[in-house]
């Protein structure tokens, strides 16, 4: 399989090109003997001598580990932590030399994690990037192992409102090979598919939070969908009558959320098929950066234009951007959601709603936590009953904000269930 060499190339792409760049600027605390070893490790690495490089890395790791354990943590010189991180980096990459097996890659990921836990940032946070690549590789390997030959529906095309959009069937292996690895040409999205019902082995890997059973609806009405795609997948702005918990397993997702009360401003389609889909976003990406929670800057616009007029901002209530896997977003019934490409990602299709970094990110998270009914903060009133599309739900002014819960679950393989409504 193309796996190990694709992984190797992906890792090489992250590392500095030259041996000279693969170095750390260190202060006097780090002794000359250690500096010698760092240089030797870099040379061995660039010279292709992986085994010897690994040996040198072990020495670097063992020695810097001792420094990290000398004195209180806050007094440990940051340079020693950077030396440790450097050793972890080269160790991790060396372990992934083809032909690697899953055990080596897992060991490499562990080395990355040790570097992230105990080390300090080096070479532009390279360990984070390496860890992401490794994790993705491991997850893909695992999924292919468990479900590779299974046939699943895949959406091809940027969004389901486009003309060129279509659905097709292919195996998981084909999907990963064509649309996940190897520089895909099109966007393929394994979207909204009840994968865990189809492949119960995968369902065994996830645990469903107890709070998903707090609703009034029947157990059978709970559905678990999987969303699996490359970067750049977009679902147009749409409204969902169900209560949702969206859990991020891997990667980042940027989502804009709108209150049901803004339905009118979001111009849902007239057709029955697309009555829950907004017409917004058909134009080219233009417009000022969206704002967050500034009622004085609501926008009104009409579809068909290139974008909103500059005089009125957009009514986006909330954004959710999960930086790390393991975060869960819950949204009440009737919420408008626009899961889009990560802001600023290359090659991703993003419309005017999602092009820029949201400065109010932190504020969003804090707000989410504060309004969560399960948080220690005072909780708002319970959510209303499921709203009909385009109708205004009965919410007080205080409840205008879509309450959302963000939890750090910290587990892999968490997907989500949806269910009808909480008690009124």
């Amino acid at each position, binding site marked *: 399989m193309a796996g190990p060499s694709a992984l190797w190339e992906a890792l090489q792409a992250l590392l500095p090109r030259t041996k000279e760049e693969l170095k750390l600027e260190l202060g006097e605390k780090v002794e000359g*003997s250690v500096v010698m*070893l760092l240089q030797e490790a870099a040379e061995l690495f660039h010279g292709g001598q992986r085994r010897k490089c690994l*040996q040198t890395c072990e020495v670097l790791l063992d020695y810097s580990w001792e420094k990290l354990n000398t004195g209180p943590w806050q007094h440990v010189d940051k340079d020693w932590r950077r030396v440790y991180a450097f050793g972890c980096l080269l160790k991790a990459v060396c372990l992934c030399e083809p032909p690697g097996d899953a055990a080596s890659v897992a060991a490499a990921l562990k080395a990355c994690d040790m570097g992230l836990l105990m080390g300090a940032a080096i070479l532009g946070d390279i360990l984070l990037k390496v860890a992401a690549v490794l994790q993705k590789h491991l997850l893909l390997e695992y999924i292919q192992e468990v479900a590779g030959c299974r046939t699943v529906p895949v959406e091809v095309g940027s969004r389901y409102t486009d003309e060129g959009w279509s659905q097709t069937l292919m195996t998981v292996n084909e999907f990963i090979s064509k649309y996940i690895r190897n520089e895909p040409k099109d966007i393929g999205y394994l979207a909204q598919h009840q994968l865990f019902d189809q492949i119960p082995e995968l369902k065994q890997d996830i645990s469903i939070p107890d709070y998903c059973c707090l609703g009034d609806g029947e157990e059978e009405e709970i559905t678990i969908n999987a969303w699996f795609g490359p970067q750049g997948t977009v679902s147009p702005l749409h409204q969902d009558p169900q209560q949702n918990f969206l859990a991020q397993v891997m990667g980042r997702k940027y989502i804009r959320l709108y209150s049901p009360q803004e339905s009118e401003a979001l111009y849902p389609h007239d057709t029955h098929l697309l009555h829950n889909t907004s017409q917004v976003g058909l134009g080219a990406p233009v417009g000022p950066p969206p704002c967050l929670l500034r009622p004085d800057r609501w926008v009104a616009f009409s579809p068909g234009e290139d974008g909103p007029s500059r005089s009125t901002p957009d009514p986006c209530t909330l954004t959710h951007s999960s930086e790390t896997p393991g975060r869960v977003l819950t949204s009440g019934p009737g919420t408008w959601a626009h899961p889009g490409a990560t802001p600023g990602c290359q090659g991703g299709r993003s419309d005017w709603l999602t092009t820029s970094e949201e400065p109010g990110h932190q504020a969003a998270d804090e707000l989410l936590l504060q309004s969560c009914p399960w948080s220690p903060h005072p909780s708002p009133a319970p959510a209303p009953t499921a709203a009909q599309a385009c109708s205004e739900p009965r919410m007080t002014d205080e409840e205008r904000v879509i309450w959302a819960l963000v939890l750090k679950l910290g587990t892999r393989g968490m997907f989500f269930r949806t269910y009808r409504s909480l008690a009124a």
Partner: protein
Amino acid sequence: MLGSRPTRVRSELSPSQTKKKDWQHSSLGSLIADPLVLWPPRPSGGLGTGSTELGLNRPRPELLEPSRPLQPGRSQPKTLRGMDEERRGTWFGFGFCGFGQALGSGLGRQVHSPEPVRMPGGSVDVCRVSASWSYTAFVTRGGRVQLSGAAGGAADGYTDACASEELLVLLRAGPGAGAELQAWAPGSALRGEPLWSHAVQEAEHGPNRDETQAGLLPLLPCARAYVSPRPSFYRPLAPTLRARRLELGAEHALLLDAAGQVFSWGSGRHGQLGHGTLEPEPEPRLLEALQGLRMAEVAAGGWHSVCLSETGDIYIWGWNESGQLALPTKSLAEDGKTTAGEASGLDEDGSEVKRVSAGEDGAPAPFIAVQPFPALLDLSPGSEAVKVSCGSRHTAVLTRTGELYTWGWGKYGQLGHKDTTTLDRPCRVEYFVDKQLQVRTVSCGPWNTYVYAVEKEKS
């Protein structure tokens, strides 16, 4: 007869007298205040054999510290009777040598089984070894300091060395009255000038006179101060302490006084101070747990401490993350390798059986990460420990009968058991038994071990 030996040793071979003899007979003409030379000096390196080879004619270790009373039952060293047989010894090394420091063959970066140390410049007369992580300092009987590894160079006129990554501290027999303490940057190759130097006062006359011995660094001969690789480098000690021996760990210090009491100070985060808590101690504090027992030796590892009583018992405390306390450690159990505390016996078919030790109710013995006060350790029935040295995370103990036991972190072969296994129970280094060698001295670097051994007496 044996009981009268101690006094005879002291009166005949008091340091001041040996010093004079050394002046008279030293081939190099420089003052050698070598405390180990307690026998008539060798005019040409041997007694009767005329050999100038490496041999060190050392008496047994217990005679090196005259303040320690001899035990009845010890056989007499031939040296005191007037050496009718030369006892030539060799230095061996094993463990990490990733910087090319002399440690045996030095093949690869690690030596897993003891190998004779090959010194640059041919065989020399090494009497003291101080190993840092990336280099080793050898001091010869002729007063030459030889560096090997990441730091190189050599110089004459020194009696003691204390090597660390930050600093190389040397004790020079100064011209005239006083000796001099010098601190060098290891990278200087001993050329140019030291970073700083400090005149060291002679020891006072009186009971402390025995402490005017080289081989005491980081404790200074006057016992009034010690040297630290970190500022402030020169650290005075309260005179009331009557220090006999001082050892430095990564974050703590141990002191053995003339009365056999042990003091500790520094950081206690890993229980290395032995006072039963994890609190630091700013000043030397007496180890109350050992009161009533006279200690003969102390050694400090990175985060652990060991001392030996005059009766040969081992007391050990501190961090046990690699089994360096010879107590069961979780990390090895997770690898399925812990064997500490077992009743290792032979099975019916004669194969050695390793069983995890069981508590009274049959449950496995608890793991010990930190031992904050001294624990008594049994090497093997009837053995007496006479010397101890600690690396960063391993321990080496020498018995009266010349056997070497090592345990703790073994990743670089520093335990000498021909592999890189980390052990949480004491194991004898079989190499010396197989070669019929008796180990006389052990000196650990952070990740390696140097050992001096002589051929066994043919009785």
